[in-house]
């Protein structure tokens, strides 16, 4: 039996068995963490208001019989203002969905937790939430080790500075120069400046990331490319994108680039359905 305590962000919750709840966190100590909160449905007092999606909490756990049991949970930050701004709230959900699909369970990856925490703080107060989401996803892709070096053409090896125009395929991690590009809608056309900015972002501490400014016309294609990367990696459709398209009709990002990955139409939440007790 092992006891531990960690900071964590609530990703999803679902009913479990007769009176419990199964909660999935993004934790600082052990990546994605799933724990059972015993009696959480019967008594609202013990776990009042702590399992709301995107809340920052401190959670105490006990490992027993290959299950993680949540013994206590205290709320650190609820990010309440986000609930009154549907765009910010939906972007927080989108980031959670990507974390759910990409962060491994039980492996410590503190940097991704801190990125998530900072993303929520920035989303809460920044006036351009879409820009926050874009920077967070770029940083996340790089952190998870999926971002290519972005310093030369994959075919002719020419350096970034020698061509003004480039084509990037975030899902496959390919970068090619204008000379070697053949028309393919799954590539994003990028200027050298934007690529240099993305490269620079990987070398600076997280808190400085948010000051970077992407060119306005680059934002939508980049975001679309990053979402395709997620679809490609997980072979899943992104549920929250469908909702964002409904609540922000002007979004139109997921359709800007046609994903080349086969897409399985299954919500990530399915994992909540398993019951092994």
């Amino acid at each position: 039996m092992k006891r531990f305590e960690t900071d964590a962000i609530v990703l999803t919750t679902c009913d479990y068995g007769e009176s419990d709840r199964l909660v999935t966190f993004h934790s600082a100590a052990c990546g994605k963490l799933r724990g059972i909160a015993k009696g959480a449905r019967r008594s609202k007092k013990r776990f009042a208001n702590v399992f709301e999606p995107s809340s920052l909490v401190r959670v105490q756990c006990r490992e027993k019989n290959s299950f993680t049991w949540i013994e206590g949970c205290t709320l650190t930050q609820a990010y309440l203002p986000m609930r009154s701004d549907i765009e910010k709230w939906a972007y927080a959900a989108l980031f959670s969905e990507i974390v759910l699909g990409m962060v491994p369970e039980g492996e410590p990856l503190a940097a991704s937790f801190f990125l998530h925490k900072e993303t929520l703080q920035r989303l809460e107060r920044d006036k351009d939430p879409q820009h926050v989401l874009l920077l967070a996803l770029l940083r996340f892709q790089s952190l998870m080790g999926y971002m290519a070096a972005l310093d030369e053409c994959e075919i002719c090896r020419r350096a970034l500075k020698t061509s003004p125009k480039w084509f990037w395929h975030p899902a496959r991690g390919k970068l090619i120069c204008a000379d070697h590009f053949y028309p393919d809608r799954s590539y994003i056309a990028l200027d050298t400046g934007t690529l240099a900015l993305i490269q620079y972002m990987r070398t600076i501490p997280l808190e400085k990331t948010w000051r970077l400014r992407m060119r306005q016309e680059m934002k939508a294609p980049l975001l679309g490319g990053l979402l395709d990367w997620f679809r490609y990696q997980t072979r899943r459709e992104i549920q929250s994108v469908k909702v964002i398209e409904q609540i922000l009709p002007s979004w139109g990002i997921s359709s800007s680039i046609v994903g080349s990955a086969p897409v399985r139409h299954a919500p990530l939440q399915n994992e909540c359905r398993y019951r092994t007790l």
Partner: protein
Amino acid sequence: MNPYPPVLSDLIRKLSRLPGLGEKSATRIAMHLLKSPDKDVESLAENIRQLRANIRTCSICFNFTEDPVCAICGDPARNTGQICVVEGTADLLAIEQSGAHKGRYHVLQGVLAPLDGIGPEQIRIKELFARFKSEKITEIILATNPSSEGEATAHYLLQILKDHDARVTRIAYGIPMGGDLKYTDRITLERALKGRQVF
């Protein structure tokens, strides 16, 4: 090895999928049904069949009903111009039992839930707007739960209702009656203080 005959274990498996039931309760219920008089079990089965055949949602408010329009929508005295918007029928019943609301309802049949792919089109929001054409609505009372999803849904409704004439109100947040401040969580206390009124 499963100790039960296939029919019984199949029933236990199906019962344990019902909300709030685990395998233990499901087994208990199955055993109870096995020992109950034939007529009780048959009448329960008939009830379940009838439920599927006869119960539908009200064409106005989406409350459950046996008729095309539910008893509340069919009652002219409830046409007060106030519509109380709730997430589900259970919430409607809770408010009805309190007797505090004299107007009509609108059951959304869910809340916005991005990770489940539930957006405005998956719940009864369009139908709420359609009611402005057929009813004289003076007030929309947003009574979704004070959870993250319920709150976001209420704010979304507030945002898209702003071009309509009706007054939009939100149920108050606070300490439950008979409650105790000492045992109240931080967020509820904060909201209760923010929502304080002149006494």
